[in-house]
């Protein structure tokens, strides 16, 4: 019975190829958008997750001013001091803290001259930002205490300056300061958000302060929070301490910003969220229009086939069997549209993920969900025409011209 109805439905569809394909078009677009949307969403999520783990997990960033700022940009809010660092180090669940003074300087070795980010910090920087030492050693207490001219090279900076040559023990010029290379960092990989984390020269904080920029400011602080700690609580505490230390009146706005990697991830995803919302709206409207299109065509079909329905009733079909036949027809049309849509959606997301440079992720659940949605639309929008067919009176229907 059901198999017969499916065959009948396929026959109807094949006999009117133009009408059938136009009927399915809405479903095709809708399902394709849903599949592409979910796939791109998952790709973006994977991307952001990877990004966060590259930046460092459980990371809290503190910097002056009320918004994010680029390295080297000047904020009119006062910078931090060493006393702030010491105060924040005492906050529970702060595993380690890296104060940073950062600037951009020409860096020269031999005849190679590049301008890159020069970051002054403590040896905690490597741990907090999850950099691994590739060769050489990290900073020692004496490097910091003596503001010694030593440096670690980021992977890219090392490539730029030394190529295949071993940089350990060599002297480079950072601005006007001659500086010995004591170690190199392993690559963190290209960051999608435009943050190149492999182009940097890392020096002791004191060296940068005293011998490169010539002040004692701390431009930003990176805090590593314990794995199982509540980072929101830590951030609240950091905020309270800094407000007190910077003598901010109750009710006045902060002149500094405390963020964790989750918030930064949210900023990264906001762009793709807009795209997702747009695609989602297209998908919803297309599915709705697709469903209405199917309903419309089936209503016409019921009228056209009134005599057939009457005849089938005369031959013993009950109302429920007529209902089933038209419901199946509706579901078959929407499932066919859904299958084509799935195919197009998968191909579309493959192209788009290449273009957006995010991983291409298509999960079987997504495809099953799309298939389910198509079936559900077939049932929902098939009910009205099917009921119209089932309610026909056999004599009236047989007499219909």
């Amino acid at each position, binding site marked *: *019975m059901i198999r*017969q109805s499916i065959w009948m439905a396929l*026959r*109807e569809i094949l*006999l009117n190829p133009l009408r059938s394909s136009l009927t399915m078009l809405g479903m095709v677009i809708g399902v394709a958008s849903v599949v592409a949307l979910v796939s791109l969403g998952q790709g973006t999520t994977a991307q952001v997750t990877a990004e966060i783990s590259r930046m460092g997990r459980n990371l809290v960033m503190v910097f002056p001013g009320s918004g994010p700022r680029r390295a080297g940009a000047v904020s009119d809010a006062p910078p931090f001091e060493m006393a702030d660092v010491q105060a924040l180090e005492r906050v529970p669940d702060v595993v380690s803290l890296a104060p940073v003074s950062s600037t951009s300087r020409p860096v020269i070795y031999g005849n190679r001259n590049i301008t890159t980010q020069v970051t002054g910090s403590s040896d905690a920087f490597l741990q907090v930002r999850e950099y691994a030492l590739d060769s050489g050693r990290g900073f020692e207490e004496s490097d910091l205490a003596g503001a010694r001219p030593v440096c670690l090279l980021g992977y890219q900076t090392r490539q730029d300056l030394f190529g295949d040559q071993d940089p350990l023990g060599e002297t480079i010029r950072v601005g006007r300061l001659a500086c010995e290379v004591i170690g190199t960092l392993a690559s963190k990989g290209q960051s999608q958000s435009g943050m190149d984390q492999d182009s940097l020269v890392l020096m002791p904080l004191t060296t940068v302060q005293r011998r490169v920029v010539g002040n004692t400011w701390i431009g930003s602080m990176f805090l590593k929070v314990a794995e199982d700690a509540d980072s929101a609580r830590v951030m609240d505490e950091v905020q309270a301490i800094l407000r007190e230390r910077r003598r901010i009146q109750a009710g006045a706005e902060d002149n500094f910003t405390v963020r964790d990697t989750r918030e930064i991830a949210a900023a990264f995803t906001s762009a793709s969220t807009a795209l997702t919302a747009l695609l989602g709206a297209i998908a919803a409207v297309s599915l709705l229009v697709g469903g209405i299109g199917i309903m419309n065509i089936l209503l016409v079909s019921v009228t056209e086939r009134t*005599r*057939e329905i009457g*005849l*089938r*009733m*005369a*031959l*013993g*079909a*009950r*109302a*429920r*069997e007529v209902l089933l036949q038209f419901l199946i027809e509706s579901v078959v049309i929407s499932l066919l549209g859904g299958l084509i849509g799935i195919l197009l959606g998968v191909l579309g997301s493959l192209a788009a993920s290449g273009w957006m440079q995010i991983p291409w992720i298509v999960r079987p659940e997504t495809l099953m969900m799309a298939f389910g949605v198509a079936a559900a639309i077939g049932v929902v929008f098939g009910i009205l025409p099917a009921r119209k067919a089932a309610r026909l*009176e*056999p*004599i009236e229907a*047989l007499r219909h011209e």
Partner: protein
Amino acid sequence: MSGETPVIRLDRLTKIYGQGDAAVVALDGVSLEVPPGQFLAVMGHSGSGKSTLMNLLGFLDSPTDGKYWFQGVDVSTLDADQRALIRRQFVGFVFQGFHLLPRLSALENVEVPLIYQRVPAPERRRRALEALEALGLGDRVRHVPTKLSGGQQQRVAIARALVVRPSLLLADEPTGNLDSARSIEIMEILSDLNRRQGITVVLVTHEPDMALWAERIVEFRDGRILSDRRNDRRTA
């Protein structure tokens, strides 16, 4: 009627269409008995009530008043689904306009009633083929209706009516769309089915020539039986 349970027994069967001033009495208290194996012709002009009678006999409609016993069972007050179940099991229809499904082959057309009876596919196919062969259409089973002549189409329709092995065959102007040679062909088939297989046949017609094939002729006018007589000049 020799004590046999009649296939059809009507007691003051009435059908009224519409209500109040617009009400039309299509069938006005008709009482009738048809014993098994009879070939009955129902005659009358259009509007005489013969089509209404046919619809009621074939369970396509339900009466406003009166009783209908089908094979001894009171079927006057069945709902639409119950009527469909009786229809699919006991009644075969042959219509004036053939009413074949245009997109299905002859074989598939004959299979349709068996689909609703949930007959498994291989048996369905076998029975449909048998029915078509019995009507001389063994070489036309793959043809769609438009590739068949009118007489062939009506024979496919008869095969479709017979394939459920009905106890009652209702033929509503079966020769109305056919020339006289094809008409005789169809009437010979119906007559033959009645004689050889003992199927009760009710033929509705307005053509006296066709009615002469039956053994009994009932004439209707204004929803009532005008005459009910044995046909002594039966066409052989």
